[in-house]
């Protein structure tokens, strides 16, 4: 069973190294888990999982391996009994649920719970039969229906329930991003070089010059190492991008942090870029694409944030721009191609999940720009592409 746990972990994508597994064995032989399942959960997680994003996968694997032990556990029955004995909780039930409970005797109910737990192979959410969360079965946790029907322990923290709740689900690696996480991902976007004011002591050179100078001290300064990367950020705003505006603004906050990039400029567009991009999100201050490209080095990195979703004519036909009454004789796609051709490295970050990039415009644009989802994994992929030029 125990080796099984190792492989279950690996199957769930928790990369456990042999070294870590051996350390766990040592910890267990020292009795650090205090011979309890809770202890095992805590010790194993502390030693095997080093990434919050994988806590959820760990919990899933733990459940898979040790669930059998849970179903047999008497504590559950006791808890159920305690729960049933508490009249306040019964009061929170809906009529339906109360009727259901009353139709069953105590023993039937316990038997039913034990059977369900044994039958059930997988974690379960929703539905009306299995034990799990968010469902309408008489058992389970935080269901939409009888929210008081919680069989987990009140304030206790037993491992099975921690695992069962899978509280770390929301911090999975593919979850949405906060400023800090974006910050860290962007930190990899760098090429260090020495430019600018000389304000750091160059020790080796100082010693060499001083020696040449017959011991007369000569101090040599040099510029500190700085990030040379310059970034142009183009953001799609309005319309279908509105639900994503918080995400986009977090990216903007992290990217515009002082000293992050040697040069950082952000412009806005709506749906597709035509003759001009705009310095403000209200489209009052245009900057023509020609001027933008003229003032931008080819080695600067282009990052576009947008959902690439629009009416095909907005991208493919002349006069496609809906909002700006300019002479756009050239279809949006031609402008996009022009921009793409200027930059050596570009990435497109799409806040929609990958499975929704099925629209014609998204498909066309993703052949032009390497498109990544605006998630942690996607952002890291985009950064890698921008640094190494992997398409």
């Amino acid at each position, binding site marked *: 069973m125990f080796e099984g746990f190792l492989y279950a972990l690996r199957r769930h994508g928790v990369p456990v190294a042999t070294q870590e597994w051996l350390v766990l064995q040592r910890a267990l032989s*020292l009795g650090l888990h205090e011979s309890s399942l809770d202890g095992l959960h805590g010790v194993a997680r502390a030693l095997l999982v080093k990434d919050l994003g994988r806590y959820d996968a760990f919990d899933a694997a733990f459940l898979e391996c040790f669930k059998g032990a849970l179903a047999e556990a008497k504590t559950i029955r006791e808890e159920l009994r305690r729960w049933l004995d508490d009249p306040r909780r019964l009061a929170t039930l809906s009529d339906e649920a109360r009727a259901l409970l009353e139709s069953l005797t105590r023993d039937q109910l316990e038997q039913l719970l034990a059977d369900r737990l044994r039958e059930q192979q997988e974690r379960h959410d929703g539905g009306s039969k299995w034990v799990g969360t968010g469902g309408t079965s008489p058992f389970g946790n935080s269901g939409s229906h009888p929210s008081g029907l919680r069989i987990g322990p009140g304030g206790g923290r037993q491992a099975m329930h921690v695992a069962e709740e899978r509280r770390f689900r929301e911090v999975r690696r593919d979850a949405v991003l906060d400023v800090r996480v974006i910050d860290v991902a962007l930190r990899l976007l760098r090429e260090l070089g020495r430019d600018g004011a000389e304000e750091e002591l160059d020790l080796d050179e100082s010693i060499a010059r001083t020696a040449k100078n017959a011991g007369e*001290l000569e101090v040599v300064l040099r510029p500190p190492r700085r990030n040379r990367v310059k970034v142009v950020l183009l953001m799609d705003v309005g319309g279908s991008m509105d639900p994503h505006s918080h995400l986009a603004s977090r990216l903007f906050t992290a990217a515009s942090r002082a000293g992050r990039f040697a040069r950082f400029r952000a412009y806005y567009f709506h749906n597709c870029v035509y003759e001009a991009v705009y310095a403000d999100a209200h489209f009052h201050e245009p900057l023509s694409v020609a001027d933008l490209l003229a003032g931008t080095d080819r080695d600067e990195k282009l990052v576009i944030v947008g959902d690439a979703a629009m009416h095909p004519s907005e991208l493919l036909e002349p006069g496609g721009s809906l909002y700006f009454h300019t002479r756009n004789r050239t279809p949006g796609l031609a402008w996009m191609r022009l921009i793409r051709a200027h930059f050596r490295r570009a990435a497109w970050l799409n806040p929609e999940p990958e499975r929704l990039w099925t629209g014609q415009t998204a498909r066309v644009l993703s052949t032009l720009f390497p498109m990544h989802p605006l998630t942690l994994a996607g952002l890291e992929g985009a950064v890698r592409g921008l640094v190494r030029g992997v398409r």
Partner: protein
Amino acid sequence: MSALPDFDRFRGTATYIVDDGLAQAVNVALALARPLLIRGEPGTGKTVLAQEVAGALGLELVRWHVKSTTRAQDGLYVHDTVARLHDSRFGAGDVRDIARYIRLGPMGRALASSTRVVLLIDEVDKADLEFPNDLLHELDAMRFQITETGEEVVACERPFVVITSNNEKELPDAFLRRCVFHYIEFPTPELMRKIVRVHHADLEERLLDQCLEAFYALRGLTRLRKRPSTSELIDWIAALKHAGVDLARIGGGLPFLGALIKNETDLDTVRRARA
């Protein structure tokens, strides 16, 4: 090594409440003599943990606050070349004695100490990406050599190393493999009640209820850029107590909101949400 009967067990202290998971992680790290890597939201007491462990075990605490410019070498020792150059030019002191210009860093001091110490490496993620890798050998072997003098510093007793990080993502795998990891979850209201009690023992139960309710409601706002933390809650309650705020007001407006929310955009968000 067998299970030590007098094995140092950390169960939190009178002023620092821990949940079982954290206590367990500390004890595993202590028993296995491995560095303990602590992650968690700012303000959940990562740094204080090292202090409290040191206090509970009666050990000295050596702190190493990592900054964006910190290099691994700085933690071991620094050869103060500028002072030496200065002395060579202006003739103060014996320039030939290099040892006079070697200054031990925090990690160097922890290893050179004749007794066991707790070494806190605070905010390891602030430094360069390569920083943790550069420390691998020293953390493993608990020894290092001062190249300039050839002297070797070997730890008599392995220090208990606590490393805090706001984000473990960018720490290298080789480094992570050697650590015991724990993520300090944000305290549940029940645990938070205990924590607040430690700092404000005389607080009225009713006021505490109201404060906690308002606090968790604030944290529930998903649009906040920075959610208020434990330490901010404690400060806020201190401010409320100090000003003798009328409890009834808590239900309506939130006085001293600035103690909880430190960002203009967030203040707006809160105002709008509560309006």
